[in-house]
């Protein structure tokens, strides 16, 4: 069976009718597949293109039905950066992502290591609970958590209520790291034991250097999480614009610039761009995480 999908070669010798129909069929199939491909590509990319084009329109043109800007208003981007608070949201998001990553890795690695390499009673149950918590909507426990952070600790208006819990292991990260550590052969752990390493030393000296790709994936997902989280900042930081993150600020930006679709789209581009850039630079770590967990990317 020849590859049906090979590009048809141009006709050289007179071919038999059967050969000709087969070739024509292959050509038609090639055309059909690639037309569908182009149609799908338009569906997936045009939204980005329209958003970007609109972000470069003048105020008046953004309210028209035009698709292409008459004049390219790059100053829109400066206007967004000059919006009071925009840089603060940027800073808060980076703090949330950075601190969140450090805390998540520190707390989740030992737990994942125990779940992957120790044998103990209740190990499967623990894993099941970790997975269940991964699937838990944050709204389920938000009322008591809010009362605890806001009324007892008086910490509403800050991001601490969503950063601190990460110091106690994040379910998704534990699961991802456990999946990764499962792929490291037990012989390494055994060999370290024979050489007289304790558990902690084995983890730090032998396992951690090998687990770098898994840790990179966790860091990456934590970064996305900080960028995407809307509910956390909405509950805890809404009353204090000084604590807003990009995702939460972006929505309010639209509220403040009621009719300025051009500025709103410029802000939207600025929120999307870092995520896409990070993806291009860290594709390997990302794919690693997706394949290991098979759950949400």
């Amino acid at each position, binding site marked *: 069976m020849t590859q049906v999908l090979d590009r048809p070669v141009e006709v050289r010798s007179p071919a038999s009718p059967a050969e000709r129909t087969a070739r024509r069929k292959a050509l038609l199939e090639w055309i059909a597949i690639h037309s569908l491909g182009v149609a799908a590509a338009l569906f997936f990319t045009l939204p980005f293109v329209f958003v970007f084009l609109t972000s470069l329109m003048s105020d008046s043109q953004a309210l028209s039905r035009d698709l292409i800007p008459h004049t390219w208003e790059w100053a829109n981007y400066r206007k967004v950066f000059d919006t009071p608070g925009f840089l603060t949201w940027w800073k808060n998001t980076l703090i949330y992502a950075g601190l969140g990553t450090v805390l998540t890795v520190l707390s989740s690695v030992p737990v994942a290591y125990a779940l992957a390499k*120790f044998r103990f009673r209740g190990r499967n149950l623990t894993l099941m609970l970790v997975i269940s918590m991964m699937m838990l909507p944050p709204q389920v426990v938000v009322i008591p958590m809010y009362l605890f952070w806001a009324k007892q600790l008086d910490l509403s208006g800050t991001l601490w209520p969503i950063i601190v819990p990460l110091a106690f292991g994040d379910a998704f990260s534990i699961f991802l790291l456990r999946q990764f550590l499962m792929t490291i052969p037990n012989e390494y752990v055994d060999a370290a034991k024979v050489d007289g390493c304790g558990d902690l030393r084995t983890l730090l000296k032998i396992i951690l250097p090998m687990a770098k790709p898994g840790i990179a994936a966790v860091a990456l997902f934590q970064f996305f999480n900080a960028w995407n989280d809307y509910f956390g900042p909405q509950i805890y930081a809404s009353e204090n614009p000084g604590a807003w993150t990009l995702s939460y600020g972006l929505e309010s930006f639209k509220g403040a610039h009621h009719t300025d679709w051009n500025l709103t789209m410029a802000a939207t581009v600025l929120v999307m761009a870092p995520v*896409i850039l990070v993806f291009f630079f860290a594709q390997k770590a990302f794919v690693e995480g997706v394949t290991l967990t098979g759950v949400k990317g």
Partner: protein
Amino acid sequence: MSALTLRTKRRRSALRTLAFLSPWLIGFAVFFAYPMISTVYFSFMHYDGFKPPTWSGTKNWTYVFESYPFFWPALRNTLWLVVIMVTLRVLFGLGIGMLITKIKTGTGVFRTLFYLPYLAPPVAATMAFAFLLNPGTGPVNSILEKIGIPAPGWFNDPNWSKPALTLMFLWGVGDLMVIFMAALLDVPKEQYEAAELDGASAWQRFRFVTLPNISPIIMFAVVTGVIAAMQCYTQPLVAGKVASGVIQGAGTMFEPGYPEHSTLTLPQLVYNLGFQRFDYGSACVVALVLFALSMAFTALLMRRRGGLIQAGD
């Protein structure tokens, strides 16, 4: 080895396990077990956040199911998303996955282009679609009208707001595309060749070779899709707020589920009851309903036999 040392060894190994698990054990207790018990407790209390909580029996429960105007619409919307949006997303993801395995020219470029929308942060994606589908000035309706197709009101029309959301979720189908692609490439080539020899048509090859091979992945996509759809919060909330033209500064003052509650989902009710109406007791009732639904589907995901996530070694 004497019994004594064996016992100390066991004890030491148990202590070591506890030490390594401790961050999560504390987290589980403080950020899950305690708030969960507390949520059950508050669901039987009347509490407005100012006056001390008072016992109210099943009042919150009857209120949510019988008098609270949003509960049934929100449940209906959530079910709509669970059934229609998830079905379309799985079918579309499978279609795109099959398409990408068949494209032989520029596969990498196509794959990246198809995947990128999935990465767009939810609020940013919703902003983009609120603009694209804006009935007055949005590019989509401009194009539709140029072609001569009647343009719907999308996020401003109760009949079209959920389809508009669905369109946005189809745009971000990259995650499903990737897992379907991997599954399709794993189907043994010999089976296709054998089917070919038996003279199977393209449909028969799909029906009797492809489908049986990828059915576990379809199942996985459906169940995780259902769990995600039940938790759908940010996109409908932001879409409704933007479409209704909320002016910022009003904080919690916005009409939930605009237009006409058509974008209201269960998780939003927790916000509406707790943070807009200050009825924390009723908010906890909805939280428990959401919890029960989520856990039921998570259990599907982890059944011992035929489970989709294997916990064993």
